[in-house]
């Protein structure tokens, strides 16, 4: 009976599990693979994890309300490309603001499609993603620019007290998102929507407002990630966001958040992004062929999810 109580408690705290698994994996990496024990290695893991992490935090916001945003990859590229393009004419600050504004706009369009056209989130966000990709081709006439924006450069590459600024930014964003999702009224509404839309409507949850805010926040964060990436590489490209589409969702889920919505904790996503980055690095370190590497990644994700992310049955 005791055991089942403990199991129940642990089950309810899947985000904690994610951190536990992260710690164990890291330990295993240090012991069984070389190169994971250095400060430099930690430094770069948390730095690279923060690009994915920022996108994944945004993704968590919409997944929690049982949505999904497949346009994040396009928004990452959109924000970077727009910023690089605008900065050539109008300087860094204007460029950054423009990029973020455009990103938010995409989020609003996504939400509008869900609310007024009643499209499934997967369809709507996929379509906006395609449209953005096409629009970027036209906007840049095919050749996106490079840009050296000092603010972004230091944000992406600098460190304070040995901690990468990008990571600090990520954690600050995560903290703000924790407030939004877990402490504020809107967050409660998002959780409610994530578990039952009819019941939420009938309880007076402001469905449109919640949807607009969460999708806009998600797109905004994808935009921020695009800017940080622009700072990191100094150049924009039309395909730079591609890896983040599926990986951001995988991070959310590895963080213990239910893809069906309404269950999980945002901090789990922080662990999820770190875990995914670590796994990728680990697989690189093992020096397997690409085929075996993908097989291992797929199996590892499934096994980890089996440990702590199973859904309960509605019996």
């Amino acid at each position: 009976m005791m055991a089942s109580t403990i199991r129940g408690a642990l089950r309810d705290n899947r985000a904690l599990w994610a951190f536990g698994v992260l710690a164990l994996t890291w330990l295993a990496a240090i012991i069984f693979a070389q190169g994971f024990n250095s400060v430099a290695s930690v430094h770069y893991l948390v730095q690279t994890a923060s690009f994915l992490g920022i996108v994944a935090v945004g993704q968590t916001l919409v997944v929690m309300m049982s949505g999904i945003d497949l346009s994040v990859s396009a928004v990452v590229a959109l924000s970077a490309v727009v910023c690089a393009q605008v900065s050539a004419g109008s300087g860094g600050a204007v460029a950054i603001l423009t990029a973020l504004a455009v990103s938010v706009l995409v989020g609003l369009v996504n939400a509008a499609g869900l609310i007024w056209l009643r499209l499934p989130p997967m369809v709507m966000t996929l379509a906006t993603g395609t449209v953005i990709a096409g629009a970027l081709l036209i906007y840049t006439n095919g050749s996106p620019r490079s840009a050296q924006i000092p603010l972004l450069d230091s944000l992406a590459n600098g460190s304070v007290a040995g901690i990468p600024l990008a990571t600090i930014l990520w954690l600050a964003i995560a903290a703000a998102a924790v407030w939004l999702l877990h402490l504020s009224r809107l967050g409660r509404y998002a959780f409610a929507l994530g578990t039952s839309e009819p019941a939420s409507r009938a309880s007076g949850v402001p469905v449109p407002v919640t949807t607009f805010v969460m999708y806009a926040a998600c797109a905004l964060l994808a935009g921020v990630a695009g800017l940080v990436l622009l700072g990191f590489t100094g150049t924009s490209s039309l395909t730079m966001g591609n890896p983040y589409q599926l990986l951001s969702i995988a991070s959310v889920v590895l963080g213990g958040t239910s893809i069906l919505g309404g269950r999980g904790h945002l901090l789990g996503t922080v662990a999820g992004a770190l875990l995914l980055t670590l796994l990728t690095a680990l697989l690189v370190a093992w020096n397997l062929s690409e085929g075996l590497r993908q097989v291992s990644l797929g199996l590892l994700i499934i096994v980890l999810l089996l440990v702590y992310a199973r859904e309960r049955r509605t019996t």
Partner: protein
Amino acid sequence: MRNRLETAVRLSGRAARGNLDLVGLCGLLVVVLVVYQRLDPTLLEPATITILSAQFLPLILAAVGQTIVMLTGGIDLSLGAVLSLGMAVFVINTADGTMSVVTAMVIALAVTVLAGAANGALVAYAGLPPIIVTLAASFLWGGVTLIVLPQPGGHVPTGLVRAYNLGWYGLALPAIAIAVALVLWKVVKTTRFGLTLYAVGGNEHGAFANGVNTRRVKIVAYGLAGLFTGLAGIGLAIQTGSGDPTIGTPYTLNSIAAAVLGGISFFGGIGQMRGTLLGALLLGLLTNLLLFTGISTFYQMILQGVVLVAAVAVKTLATRERVA
């Protein structure tokens, strides 16, 4: 009395609305076909039908597979990877000679059915949502495909490739294959299993509480989807005369788009295969149509996104319940 009458009116209205869906799709398809015919007058000639059906076969069969999974309330994000896997296994086993082609087909289908069933077993037993299981599985099967066929290659007997792509004594082999596959589905649908599929998708717990072995149903459904996906992969291999380990990727999203367009619900239990067929045809023809219109490629992507949104939105808005 009045009540009864009103119920009857309401019911027939609903029936019309249910079919309105398909009627609308059919109408759209006719419009597209007419426009197509003007741009390409050979549309209805056997040669063109052969070419087009060879072109559409992989998408149609993949969408059939996706539909089966979606009817159970699931989704298969590993479909593209399994399609490539089927293709890869098929081409490494084909050499010249009919016998070996048949054997290779059987082996390839066995592999894809097993891959699908494995997905299904994970969904059924692991208690993980299908979208996540199959996302992870897409890495898994993608990796397996790369191990089986590290880079494009393999060879399908030239005679078969020619017969398939150019017609065989005037017969459009791919069209026949599609028809056979759809008849196969029709039979499956009228079996108990077919009804169970809809029952599980519509109310899983209800089905379970009534003694349906929901786990077995899911495993079989995903396995069946693997069968159709494998057929799609084999079709693609014969069309292209070879195998390519990464060629299947776009089919994942395209198959979902076709199914959604055809009226299959993401929540399971709702939708008809003929809807999916129409959806896939429409998607394929529209993409082709863009090629004839000479619209700048830059705008084509935008148009694709807009068309998808518009089609699905019109469909959902036209068929939704009138609740506040």
